[in-house]
């Protein structure tokens, strides 16, 4: 097991370096980043100064080496627009993203499991059809539009909640958290429902019922525990969905988090900021895949020996 984990960690580091190389050259794909930030009235001398300041006068390989060394020291470069260190900008924005992301994740997952399990146990009932309908609709409507419609209805017309923006009161969280949940709930709910249906059909659930356990114990203890494995497999996809959802939600509600920061940097073509944020997310992606692999190996010894 230790050997397996070490090999996996090494592979993840290799993948990270691969992603860094890719990102480094991708943001430079159009050639010269200075062309994006130079003003038309700058003299040649001023432009040369920018080159030297950004270290762009050196060959790519050397630039990349400088970049890698910086990353391992926690230095992600400086923003071209705000002239602040990227790492500092991220450390200011990340808490705001988490303030939105963590409650959304907890409530969203909770709802997905409760609704999914209830729908599965009441198969083809009115409730089940309602859940199915919501899931189908939820997977078709664009999240950004739903967020905007929520503002239109609950803020502009009904005045039930405060307007967009980061505020102190919990009321400021209602619409953004609701929108974030919208991004993950439908798919997750569907998955929980179908997994639960499979599990409820299995022999050991029949056995548990024959043993005379109460319906509640059978469903919430025996069945749900086994239905938990399947969502684990899509944890990676869920992460991707949450990140995209966060960017869109923060944009709709003027939320000063990482998503909005990345978006603003993209529009301004502020490549060090975009590069930094992508790196952080890439670490998240690889970390989650590592976690999934290790938990699989923990559950299934075959994987442990075969892949290592």
């Amino acid at each position: 097991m230790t050997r397996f984990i070490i090999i996996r960690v090494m592979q993840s580091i290799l993948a990270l370096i691969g992603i860094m190389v890719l990102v480094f050259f991708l943001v430079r794909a159009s050639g010269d980043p200075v062309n994006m930030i130079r003003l038309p009235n700058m003299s040649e001398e001023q432009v040369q100064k920018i080159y030297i300041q950004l270290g762009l006068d050196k060959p790519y390989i050397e630039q990349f080496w400088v970049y890698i060394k910086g990353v391992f020291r926690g230095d992600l470069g400086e923003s071209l627009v705000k002239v602040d260190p990227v790492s500092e900008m991220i450390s200011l924005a990340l808490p705001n993203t988490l303030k939105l992301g963590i409650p959304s994740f907890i409530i969203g997952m909770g709802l997905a499991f409760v609704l999914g399990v209830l729908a599965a146990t009441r198969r083809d009932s009115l409730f089940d059809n309602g859940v199915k309908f919501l899931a189908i609709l939820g997977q078709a409507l664009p999240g950004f539009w739903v967020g905007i419609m929520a503002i239109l209805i609950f803020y502009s017309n009904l005045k039930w909640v405060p307007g967009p923006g980061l505020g102190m009161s919990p009321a400021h969280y209602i619409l953004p958290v609701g929108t974030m949940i919208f991004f993950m709930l439908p798919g997750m709910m569907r998955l929980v429902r179908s997994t639960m249906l499979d599990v409820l059909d299995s022999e050991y659930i029949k056995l548990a019922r024959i043993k005379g356990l109460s319906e509640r114990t059978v469903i919430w203890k025996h069945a749900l525990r086994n239905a938990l494995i399947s969502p684990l497999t899509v944890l990676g996809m869920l992460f991707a969905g949450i990140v995209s959802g966060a960017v869109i939600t923060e944009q709709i509600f003027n939320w000063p988090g990482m998503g909005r920061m990345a978006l603003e940097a993209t529009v301004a073509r502020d490549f060090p900021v975009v590069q930094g944020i992508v790196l952080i997310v890439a670490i998240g992606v690889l970390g989650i895949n590592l976690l999934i692999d290790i938990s699989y190996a923990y559950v299934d010894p075959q994987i442990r020996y075969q892949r290592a």
Partner: protein
Amino acid sequence: MTTLGEVRAKPAKRISGLSRGARIVRSLTFFVPMVIMLGLVFITLFAPLIAPYDPIEQHMLERRLPPSFFEGGTTKYILGTDHLGRDILSRMIYGGRVSLSVSLLAIMITAGIGTVMGIASGYIGGRTDGFLMRLTDIAMSFPGLLIAMLLSVGVGPGFWTVVFALSILGWAGYSRMIRGEALRLRNSDFVMQARVNGVSNIGIMFKHIFPNVVNTLIIIMTLQIGMMILAESALSYLGIGIPAPTPSWGSMVSDGRNDLDRAWWISTFPGIAIGLVVLSGNFLGDWIRDKTDPRLRRL
């Protein structure tokens, strides 16, 4: 006491399937989406003939006019006008062009890459399989939005930037499913036979494995239409899609964001269009899947 007749009747009822009402609903879930999709293809092909106005033509004196069926609206602009006095209906008709062409191109590219990767992975196996599946895992859990941002920064926004942004990760969904199929086919009799007859590996993959995964491929492609249209609209909503003034449904929703309290229709209608088309795409995908291969119901 149950008679023999009753016992027999039960499974028979199950096999013939659904009641008449349910069967009508089921056929409606095919025909209505089909009509919507064909309608979309039709209006995008003939957009210049159908659209009442030029989509980027501004009528500065007729800004933020409500739809014709609301108070203050005129029949001149059926769905109203936006903050620059542009006809919303015409913009939606032209916007459908963007959504559809970007999505179809991205689907073709991702299907191509995904099929090659999937067949190679499943048929060759071993280390190649390990590496490709690892790559698939990463691609599946990497937020596509960030790739779009990177490309937008590095290459600049534009039509092909959006197509490639949607394609760079989109193949992962194909490669995993097709790998499974290829894995199953690799050990089948006819592949063994071909190998005994001395067909090269490339030949087997092309002539024997590929024709047998086409079914799965088509199902995934149909299911991807909705996803791609949603992704494209999200990019244009965020301003990293096709640059203005070219109309697209996502950017139209974003246009109305600052006018929510005085002109709700600007954001509302394009969103409904996206929802309707994606819903149709998903229903069609489900229908084709159920008809051809119910095993894939989990997709």
